[in-house]
């Protein structure tokens, strides 16, 4: 193996890692983990091609657009990348999405022949809320699971929250994800701020916790269900056995809530440039 090849591998691996930060907004799971990315290639001029395919030809164009745009932004942020070119394939409006993202157009303009104008900000906001609530529910259940009572959770500040060590790797990972979304939302920046507030920033009172969690549970179940559906459809489309199904048992016994919501191993296909064998359609 020659040096240039190693260099390419290293760069491709950086791109994969970077893509792991891009989520499907509807599922709040990484596009790499969902198996959406087919391959990544780095050319001699440090241009990066990212080819991705969604579970169906009909998958929501708005989410496809958001993901492609997020991929472009994320990969472009690597210092050596000169151009990031996400390419959605085998989708009813692949061409429009690819062109729009490449030219940096907003969704409404890129798909003006198909969809009513306007931006996707409102939709993004709606799903940002769901992602926040899902991550928060996970952490509240994890805290309850290690013996915290609701009043203690409701008044817990970020300093105390940060100090809690969770043994389970998955809980630690989710803790970081929750902290990240708190920061993105400007909720809880200082050590004395509450660790658990509503998406609007309102404190949660102990007597409100049960109905609050009932609603959050619905958000989580919905997202998990969609994720399972998407994975199954993608596997069927790719003519592969549903790899995730084999891991179902371990997922279902996640430490925090027993729901299987996040007990997934983070299997980054780091060097392998082609994760899926694709049946031409």
């Amino acid at each position, binding site marked *: 193996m020659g040096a240039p090849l190693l260099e390419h591998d290293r760069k491709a691996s950086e791109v994969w890692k970077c893509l792991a930060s891009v989520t499907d907004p509807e599922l709040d799971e990484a596009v790499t983990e969902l198996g959406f990315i087919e391959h990544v290639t780095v050319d001699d001029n440090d241009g990066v091609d990212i080819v991705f395919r969604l579970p169906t030809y009909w998958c*929501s*164009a*708005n989410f496809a657009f958001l993901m492609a745009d997020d991929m472009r932004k994320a990969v472009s942020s690597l210092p050596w990348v000169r151009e990031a070119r996400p390419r959605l394939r085998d989708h*009813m409006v692949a061409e429009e999405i690819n062109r729009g993202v490449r030219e940096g157009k907003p969704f409404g303009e890129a798909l003006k022949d198909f969809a009513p104008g306007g931006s996707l900000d409102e939709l993004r906001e709606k799903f940002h809320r769901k992602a926040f609530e899902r991550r928060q529910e996970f952490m509240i259940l994890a805290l309850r699971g290690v013996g915290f009572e609701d009043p203690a959770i409701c008044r817990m500040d970020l300093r105390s929250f940060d100090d809690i060590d969770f043994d389970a790797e998955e809980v630690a990972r989710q803790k970081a994800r929750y902290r990240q979304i708190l920061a993105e939302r400007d909720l809880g920046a200082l050590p004395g701020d509450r660790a658990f507030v509503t998406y609007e920033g309102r404190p949660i009172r102990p007597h409100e916790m049960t109905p609050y969690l009932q609603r959050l*549970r*619905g958000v989580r179940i*919905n997202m998990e269900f969609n994720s399972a559906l998407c994975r199954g*459809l993608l596997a*069927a489309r790719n003519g592969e056995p549903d790899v995730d199904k084999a891991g179902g048992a371990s997922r279902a016994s996640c430490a925090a809530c027993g729901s299987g919501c996040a007990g997934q191993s983070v299997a980054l296909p780091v060097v392998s440039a082609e994760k899926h064998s694709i049946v031409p359609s």
Partner: protein
Amino acid sequence: MFITPTGEEIFVVDGHTHFWDGSPANQLNIHGKQFIDCFYAYHSSLSPKDKLWPKDQFEKYSAEQMYQDLFVDGPDDMAIVQSTYLTEFYKNGFNTIDRNAEMAKKYKDRFIVNGAFDPRDGERALEYIHYMKETFGIKGVKLYTAEWKGDSRGWKLTDPNAYRCFELCAKLGITNIHVHKGPTIIPLDKDAFDVHDVDHAATDFQGLNFIIEHCGLPRLDDFCWIAVQETNVFGGLAVALPFIHGRPRYFAEVISELLFWVGEDKLLFGSDYAIWTPRWLVEKFWNFELPEDLKQEHGVDLTPQAKKKILGLNAARLYGVDVEAQKAKLAKAPHPIAAG
């Protein structure tokens, strides 16, 4: 009729079936191909391996086979067959009411044929509703709010034209409005999955029942919020139910959620035939027990009584089927295929 392991007879109304032609000969364009391919992906990803069909059989099947799968090999007593036009994808449509009614008339007392309309047709939609009532005596319709039409990329139940159609439906006794709020055909709109229009329409038309097919998946959480507030909003289990095989835990979570928010009186079984066949679904559903932790967490249970309602009694109530009379009628009539 489904016979339980203890010998009890359960009346089954399959709330969601199709008699389609998605064959290459009927496909108008690439969309027609991709549409049936997508259905086939649902079929292959969620069916037990021994229930998988070859692609060509899935694309187009005969009336005889449908009858066999539902009523002879399958446990259905009755089936609601939905109409889906998709005339922009298929030369003769995917499964129009004419095609469905032609099939249904061979099998007396078995099928409830539902119509379909598109409020964007304006006056013609109203005329078509009259035509379907007079010709086929429909009691229900299936609506696709995300369907493309000309420049339009979908519509909402709250559009003024839709309200005119609902007013007419209420007047003619077409009381069951099945709305496809689930995986959508062409969800190009900014948010074609949104279910909130159901809320307003259900409030404004108390005399109509809104059956939300696929329980609003992929917006189950939003759907539950609406259904809990509206007494005339129901959930159809098609697509959710097949998870009972490959991912029983997810199914348990979803059905618990639905029992908690929507309730056992407002959920309808549907196989979504021919995406899935009803026998294995009904068998697995009958044998399914909610895990103890979910029973406690949600404070609900999937009792035999709840299963009976979901499998048939709820749909019978919506369609005015007298279960005992219908059982007696069916017991007298042999299967036409067996009878030659």
